[in-house]
């Protein structure tokens, strides 16, 4: 009985930690970007489906854990010093699977002070579980070839995610 109660408490704790999501797909996408901007790692993770796969500037994160460990910190760093303004958005899908396609004008500064002003393309696929949408796939790319190459190089310099 005691063990069952402890298991229930843990399940509730885990659900609370991962319970955010959003009722509207586009809200989940915007909340994810806001969490990055606020350097809120837990909030960002709460908007990700546990079966997340990320394609980012030519690099793959095959699991939510790999993304969380390798590239989420970098995305938080980037979001904190850049401004993403929505240029266009299309939403679609039905039932528990939806997609949100967004183009952003991204402005900021490179480490040497050079201004950045480019378009980033974003594909988000969201899945609804327990009434809340979470991101199950993200794909980012940019219209700036040299910037894309730089980003890809930076992303492949990180260490591999630890294996269990």
């Amino acid at each position, binding site marked *: 009985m005691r063990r069952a109660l402890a298991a229930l408490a843990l399940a509730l704790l885990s659900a609370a930690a*991962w319970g955010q999501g959003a009722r509207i797909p586009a809200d989940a996408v915007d909340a994810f970007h806001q969490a990055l901007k606020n350097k809120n790692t837990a909030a960002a993770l709460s908007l990700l489906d546990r079966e997340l796969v990320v394609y980012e500037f030519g690099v793959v994160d095959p699991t939510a854990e790999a993304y*969380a460990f390798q590239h989420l910190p*970098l995305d938080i*760093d980037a979001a904190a*010093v850049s401004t993403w303004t929505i240029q266009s958005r299309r939403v679609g899908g039905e039932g528990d699977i939806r997609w949100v396609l967004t183009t952003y004008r991204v402005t900021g500064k490179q480490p040497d002070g050079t201004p950045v002003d480019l378009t980033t393309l974003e594909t988000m696929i969201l899945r609804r579980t327990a009434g809340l949408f979470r991101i199950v796939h993200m794909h980012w790319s940019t219209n700036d070839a040299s910037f894309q190459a730089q980003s890809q190089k*930076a992303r492949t310099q990180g260490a591999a995610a630890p294996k269990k």
Partner: protein
Amino acid sequence: MGSRSFQALRKATTCLAVTIAFASAIAYAGHEPMAPDPTLRRYTGKVTALGPPDAKGKVYAFSAAPVGPRNFPLKPDDLRGWRMTVLSGKRFGTEFRIGGNTESEIRVNAQTGPVEGLAVNDVFVIESIDANGASMFTTPAPVPASGG
């Protein structure tokens, strides 16, 4: 040394310094190669053992080993007050506040709850971010002795 060769040496030194600074920044850059917050420090690691339960049977401490490029040798209470987020396992996405640490053990603040459900090999990140979401430092993080 003639003035022309002195100028050439000066130009070469400046060029080298700029190149090193730019390369360092790029190596740390993320999905956008933009200047990150230089005051934000991170420690990534994995759980190697869970600490003993307290009198009420709750566990608040665990042993840890550094993993990945974002860490540094721990000194006592280096991480005190920092924010920890679990990045894998049953407690994925759960946030704790660090109460203190030794060179190898990390203790969470009792107010953020016990680490029930945390398991050996679970991965976490600990960031120098206070309860208001602001960096706890005003100066840039020191360059780690090792890592990539």
